[in-house]
């Protein structure tokens, strides 16, 4: 083999690795919560602040926790997808309103539609920290035993719903 080709080959290998790196989204981090118990909290409901919600109430049901905020631009893009999701499927969708103003959040839901069974307010963002939220919107799927099974960072697309979330929920329904 021609020795002059060695640097060229090394270069090609480097380019291949860099090209693979470019296709990956650095914002998609592996969540340390997968397979672990969902962090607990007790937060007021967005529409009835005198009542509270806690993940324990969902024991025995597979459910989705969607972290959203009215100031979050990509949540707007995601919102219609969620509206369609609850219209076409029987899912338990809970909204975690993250670091938002109650008034803004309520207005947002009344204007764009409310896909959530209920929304809870995390005004301080402390529950967000407990759930490792770093880029709203984020979506978690929790199984009947309260174990986090999937985390999706960034807006959920119709493709994600069809290929990831619905199949997982179907599988979780079958589990005891």
């Amino acid at each position: 083999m021609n020795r002059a080709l060695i640097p060229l080959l090394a270069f090609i290998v480097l380019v291949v690795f860099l090209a693979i790196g470019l296709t990956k989204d650095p914002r998609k981090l592996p969540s340390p919560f997968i397979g672990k118990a969902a962090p607990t909290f007790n937060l007021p409901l967005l529409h009835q602040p005198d009542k509270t919600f806690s993940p324990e109430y969902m024991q025995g049901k597979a459910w989705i926790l969607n972290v959203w905020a009215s100031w979050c631009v990509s949540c707007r893009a995601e919102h219609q997808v969620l509206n369609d999701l609850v219209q076409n499927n029987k899912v338990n969708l809970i909204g975690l309103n993250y670091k938002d103003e109650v008034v803004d959040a309520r207005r947002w839901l009344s204007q764009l539609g409310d896909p959530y069974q209920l929304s809870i307010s995390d005004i301080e963002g402390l529950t967000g920290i407990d759930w490792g939220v770093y880029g709203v919107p984020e979506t978690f799927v929790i199984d009947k035993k309260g174990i986090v099974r999937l985390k999706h960072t960034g807006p959920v697309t119709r493709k994600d719903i069809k290929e990831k979330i619905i199949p997982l929920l179907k599988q979780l329904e079958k589990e005891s």
Partner: protein
Amino acid sequence: MRSLLIALALLLSFSHPLLAGVEVKEFDSPQQEQRYKKLVDELRCLVCQNQNLADSNASLAIDLRNQVYKMINEGQSDKEIMDFMVTRYGDFVLYRPPFKTSTFFLWVGPFIIFIIGFFVLIRFIRQRKNVVSTLTDNDKEKLKQLLDEDKEQTK
């Protein structure tokens, strides 16, 4: 020209990294303050991924700085605070990730590449030596002649 200079000076003063993370925090002891500074320096901001908590102005970074501050005041150890962050955000939150199988190449890779480079260099140097020593007596004679001619000409 002068106004341009002033504008430039202003711009530079605003871009100073010390300006990020400006909330005033009061500590009971200088040791606690040192620990706080060290921790926010070592923890990554997950929103702006190439900044640490100390440098970032993202709202999550502010919350996490407050969290570190709170935990220090509650008397929690550095390890407890690091563990708190890792259980929530994963190893990525650490600027110095722990050594384990998934980070093996991250830690050892540079040394492997260094060793490979070292051996390639040694081989390269040896080959050059061989080139010199393969000159025959005839070649050496010629070389001497050429060098002498060169000297003559430059005189």
